[in-house]
C-alpha cells in the first residue's frame, strides 16, 4: 500500500494519521483546541492501549534516523500526550481556569 502513513503494525491508527501527525507542539495544541472532546476521546481510546508498543517500535531505530513512518508514529504519540491532558486531567479541551492565557512553544528538539 503506497499511501500508508504509519508502520504496518499500526494500521488501525491510519484514520487518525491525517489529523494528528503534526510536527510541532504549536500545531498539536491548536488541533486540540479546535477538537471536540468526542473526537479526542475516539483517538485516545484507539491509541492509548498501544502507546508503549508504539514507543518500543520507534526505539528499534536510532533516534536521529527514524524512518518516515516511525517518525509519523512518534508525532502521533506526541498528539496522544497532548490529548491526554484534556481526556485524563481537565475533562475539557483547555486547562481549567487558564482563562485568556497563552504560552507559545518556540523551540523544541526534533524529532
Amino acid at each position: 500500500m503506497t499511501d500508508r502513513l504509519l508502520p504496518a503494525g499500526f494500521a488501525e491508527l491510519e484514520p487518525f494519521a491525517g489529523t494528528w501527525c503534526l510536527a510541532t507542539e504549536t500545531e498539536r495544541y491548536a488541533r486540540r483546541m479546535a477538537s471536540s472532546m468526542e473526537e479526542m476521546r475516539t483517538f485516545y481510546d484507539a491509541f492509548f492501549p498501544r502507546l508503549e508498543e508504539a514507543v518500543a517500535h520507534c526505539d528499534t531505530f536510532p533516534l536521529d534516523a527514524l524512518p518516515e513512518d516511525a517518525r509519523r508514529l512518534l508525532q502521533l504519540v506526541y498528539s496522544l500526550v497532548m490529548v491526554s491532558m484534556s481526556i485524563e486531567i481537565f475533562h475539557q479541551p483547555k486547562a481549567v481556569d487558564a482563562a485568556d492565557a497563552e504560552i507559545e512553544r518556540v523551540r523544541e528538539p526534533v524529532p
Partner: protein
Amino acid sequence: MARWPKPAEGSWTEHYPEIGTGLISFEDSVSPEFYELEREAIFRRAWLNVGRVEQLPRKGSYFTKEVRVARTSVVVVRDGGGGVRAFFNVCRHRGNKLVWDEFPGEETSGFCRQFTCKYHGWRYGLDGALNFVQQEGEFFDLDKEDFGLVPVHCEVWAGFIFVNLAREPEQSLHDFLGPMVTALDGYPFDKMTEWYVFRADNRSNWKIFADAFQEYYHVPALHPQQVPIEVRTPGSGFECAHFQLDGPHRVVSTGGARRWTLPPEYMYPIERATRSGLVGPWESPEIGEPPPGLNPGRIDPWGIDNFQIFPNLEILIYRGWYLLYRYWPTSHNTHHFEAMLCFQPATTVQERVEHEVAAVVFKEFALQDAGMLTGTQTALESGVLDRFPLNDQEVLVRHFHKVVADWVADYQKNHAEV
C-alpha cells in the same frame, strides 16, 4: 502529609526579622511611577541573565536581547578569542539599531564574521571595533578607534550569561550572586542542552507572575488536578520543606515522597505509561556528586530546589534536569515571560517522549498560573484594597517585594544626594 521543621523562631518569616510579618502593599505592581523607578533602580543596576553559553556555540555566534524595561537592546557575541562579549545594539554612525533581522523590535540570533549596519554599511568586528566606514574620506577627522560599539558589562557564571547595564556595576557578578547561589557552582547545567523553550506575553506586572512561582500555597486551590480526583483530599495544604534568603536572592525546596514512588492511582495513566509527568521523567542519567549549594536544607527525601535570582531569573533544579524562567517587564502592567525546560539530550525515543510529557504538563499548569494574572492585575489596579496578609509559606513573596522596595529606596537616596 509530612510536616517539616521550622526554624527556632517558630516560622521562616520570623527567622528573617528584617522582612517583618505585617500586611504588605502591591502598589509596586500597579503604579506607573514605581515602574519608572524600577527601570533605573533595578534593571540598570542589577546583573540580568540574558541567555546561556550554549546559544553561542562558536566564534561569531550572536544573539540579541531586547531589554525594554531599560529601553535598550543588547547584542551578545562569541568573539574571535572564544570569549563572550556584549554591546549596546546601536550603530555609532547615526544611531540605527545595528543587529536585527526582519523587524527591529524582534530578537534575532545567528552567526557572522562581522556586524554590518543596514543603514549606511558601517562594519564592526566581533570585538566591537569599527572596521569599515563607507566613503571614509568624506568624514572630518574621523578616527575609527574612537567609534567602536559601546560595550555592556558581561560576565558568565555556570554558563549563564549576565549583563549589567550600569556604567560601572556596583558589584562583580560573583559578589552579586552571593554564596547561596554560587554554591551551585559545578552543577552540570552544560550537560542539559536539549531545550524546550516557551514564551508568553502576560497582562500583569512582572512581579505578580514571579510571585506565583515562589510560593506553593496556591497549589491545592489553583492546581487541584495535579492530584488525580480519586485520591484528591479536599482541604489538604501544601507545605514546603525549606526556605532560605541570601541578599536579594531566595530559594525554596520541596520534599516528600516522589510522585512515582506513590501508589499508581496517584498518577495519571499517561504518566504511568510514559514514566514521566508532573515533576518530569522518573529517571534521568546520573550527574555525579551534587554541588553543596543543591538542596541547601539537606531535605530528605528532596524534591526540587527553586532558586529566585534577583531581579527576574528563576532556576528550578529537578533530578537531572532544570527549568528556567525569566520575567521581562514591558510596562507597569505587562511583561514578557520566558521559560526553558533543559534536559540531558535524549538518546532514545522513550527518553524523548519522557521530555515531551514533562514539557506538555509544564505548560498546562503554567497556563493556570497565567490565567490568574489578568484578574489579579485588574483587581489590584481597582485600588479597593491596599494592604494584604502573607503567610509563612509566602515568605519569599514578602522578601521579593521588600528587596524591590529596598533597591528603589537605595537608588532614590543616592540620587537625592547627587
